[in-house]
């Protein structure tokens, strides 16, 4: 765990779960694996608070526990799953994707499950139905069956999955026996459980209740027939979906809309047949693709063949041809597409930071691998002095490296080649760390801005509350304007600019997260193929 990653984890935990969980979480990340005793002792927090924090972290899947080094008889050890903490940055994207695929119901289901970590199907359905009913006009209410159908669709397309059971959850009959826990180093994969995507057979009938203002407290969590079966969001499936989206939008930017539709069809057909870390999809024949194309795209068979050959010849190598049977066998090169997208990201970063000529040098070095100083100047067609300047700037930022190739064994400088080079993978890792630092800075700045104007924010909240209560009791316009005037005009302007800044910082976080996703997918794809 690098410093920036630990810092970002701490900030995310603090935002969502408070200072106590942040302290516990960052300490556990730094130490690796700890027992409850050691954790409480080292963080100097009261034992109860540490227990509660660990419960919250386990509930949300960010902390795993297992039998420690001393075996099942020893104390339980806990460790934090950092990737899971970083997923918190991406929650809005998951919810938005669910909304675009399955509508408002899907959006609310995913949002509820993300907020609570894991939930049973019955409690999710009830809460979501209540929330939807709340937003509907008087007299209407949401039926449970509609929510259940959307839930089942989410499970069928693998966006939701069952939480993996603890290894011996079913074996012990009496609660007094201490059940042996799985070894901490090998967490059970949710996919290894055969019932991972099986819906429980429960009878849920009813309609959402409109919550009256007189009722207080949460809806009671009654035990349904599916007690003990918990569902969580399948982040990997969402990531595959995002990856497909990135490839399709890249194709549509580079070529045109129709080719992107063809690639979309190919990816849709191979959704279920391709494993998660595959380098390319299953081979599809041109006949199959033609049959699967939606008629709304209006692509004739010869046109399809032309598009496919165009895609194959494109230097980005999104689509490859693997055979000639069935009109031609085509695959989508997933790993190569990710590598190309990462490369485009790196080039764009250099361009925006250092200018288009430095970007030209960078692209040159990426293509030609190793070049001498003189060759760089010649190929890039940039005068020597400026080329030198740009190269040294890139070198100082560590985006370009110097490689020595000796002619003689004694490394004499007059008889050694010094070549400039760019390695894509280490540079991508470097940029990923920069991204983590960026998001950390954005969050800190937002917290700072909020803290600076805390007094003003509280005042405006109080005035809004007063206005709302006045309006509810039916006050006249004169009273309302009198209350509104309690905020002076310069204060109002200050509030407006504060809101603008916070919105900007928040959307920047969302955008940097897209880059993080791309770079992380590329790095993971290179590791998987090793």
């Amino acid at each position: 765990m690098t410093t920036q990653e630990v810092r970002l984890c701490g900030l995310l935990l603090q935002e969502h779960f408070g200072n106590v969980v942040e302290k516990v979480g960052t300490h556990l990340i730094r130490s690796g694996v700890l027992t409850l005793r050691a954790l409480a002792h080292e963080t100097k927090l009261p034992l109860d608070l540490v227990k509660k924090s660990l419960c919250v972290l386990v509930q949300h899947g960010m902390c795993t526990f297992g039998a420690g080094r001393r075996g099942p008889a020893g104390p339980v050890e806990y460790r934090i799953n950092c990737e899971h903490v970083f997923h918190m940055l991406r929650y809005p994207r998951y919810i938005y994707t669910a909304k675009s695929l399955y509508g408002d119901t899907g959006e609310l289901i995913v949002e509820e499950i993300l907020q609570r970590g894991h939930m049973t199907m019955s409690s999710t359905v009830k809460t979501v139905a209540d929330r939807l009913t709340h937003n509907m006009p008087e007299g209407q209410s949401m039926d449970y069956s509609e929510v259940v159908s959307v839930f089942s669709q989410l499970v069928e397309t693998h966006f939701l999955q069952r939480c993996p059971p603890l290894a011996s959850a079913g074996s012990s009959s009496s609660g007094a026996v201490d059940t042996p826990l799985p070894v901490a180093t090998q967490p059970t994969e949710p996919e290894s459980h055969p019932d991972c995507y099986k819906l429980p057979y429960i009878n849920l009938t009813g309609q959402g209740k409109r919550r009256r203002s007189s009722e207080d407290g949460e809806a009671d969590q009654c035990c349904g027939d599916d007690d003990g079966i918990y569902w969580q969001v399948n982040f990997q499936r969402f990531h595959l979906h995002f990856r497909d989206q990135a490839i399709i939008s890249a194709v549509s930017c580079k070529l045109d809309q129709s080719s992107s539709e063809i690639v979309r069809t190919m990816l849709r057909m191979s959704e279920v047949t391709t494993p998660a870390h595959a380098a390319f999809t299953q081979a599809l024949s041109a006949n199959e693709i033609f049959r699967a194309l939606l008629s709304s795209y209006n692509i004739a068979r010869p046109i399809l063949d032309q598009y496919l050959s165009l895609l194959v010849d494109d230097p980005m190598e999104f689509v490859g041809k693997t055979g000639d049977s069935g009109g031609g066998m085509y695959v989508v090169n997933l790993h190569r597409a990710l590598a190309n997208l990462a490369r485009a990201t790196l080039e764009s970063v250099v361009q925006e930071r250092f200018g288009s000529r430095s970007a030209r040098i960078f692209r040159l070095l990426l293509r030609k691998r190793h070049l001498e100083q003189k060759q760089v100047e010649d190929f890039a067609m940039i005068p020597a002095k400026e080329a030198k300047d740009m190269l040294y700037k890139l070198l100082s930022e560590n985006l370009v490296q110097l490689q020595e190739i000796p002619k003689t064994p004694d490394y004499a400088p007059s008889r050694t080649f010094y070549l400039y080079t760019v390695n894509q993978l280490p540079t991508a890792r470097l940029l990923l760390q920069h991204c983590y630092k960026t998001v950390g800075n954005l969050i800190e700045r937002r917290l700072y801005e909020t803290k600076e104007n805390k007094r003003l924010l509280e005042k405006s909240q109080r005035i809004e509350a007063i206005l709302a209560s006045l309006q509810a009791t039916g006050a006249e316009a004169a009273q309302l304007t009198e209350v509104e005037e309690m905020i002076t005009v310069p204060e109002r302007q200050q509030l407006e600019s504060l809101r603008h800044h916070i919105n900007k910082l928040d959307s920047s976080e969302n955008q940097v997260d897209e880059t993080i996703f791309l770079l992380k997918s590329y790095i993971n794809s290179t590791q998987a193929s090793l």
Partner: protein
Amino acid sequence: MAGRGRGHRTFSVEIVGIGKGENLPPSSIQPTPLFPPLDQKPVPLQAGEEAEYMLALKQEFRGAMKTLPFYIRPAAPKKDVERYSDKYQKIETSDWKPDWRRFPKELRVREKRPLRDKSPAVPKQTKQPRVNKEEIIRKLETLEQKEEEGSSDEEEGEKKKPEEQEAEGEEEYDEEEFEDETDYIMSYFDNGEEFGGDSDENIDEAVY
């Protein structure tokens, strides 16, 4: 790459292109500034319906997490005086009950009953009767009735444990009105009931 010979430099900057006597930028001897000036302006953020919707989702999610019971706040410091505005500033936090079958047993917070250790002290003090809240109302009406009901409330007070703590706080105030026949102020009398009351609290610590 250290030079082996006497005074032989292993690396000369001529190789990488810097000629002799050329103007180099001055070497910096301090860390880079905190907000360095940018050569190019950054590209504007993505705007559009999707970006705005995700922004709204993010802010709503953040706000919602603060109200859920997963947001753990450290115990609020004890205030010196009860203030009127406390009633309106209290944040509702309902405790959630996790499914303990999926959690290790040691994470279970056992609910303490802090009043358990105070109850053995009750039979010792016959002079300081326990009073309920209702007694305070009745007290205002007649002083004489209080003395008679005080002895019967001793038994009632033992059963109503949750109100013991408040009763103890008001005890000393009540005693002055009670024992109005003596010249001695009861609050000055400390019979050491508080001593050793904390010994049973941390049951989780193993005793060696």
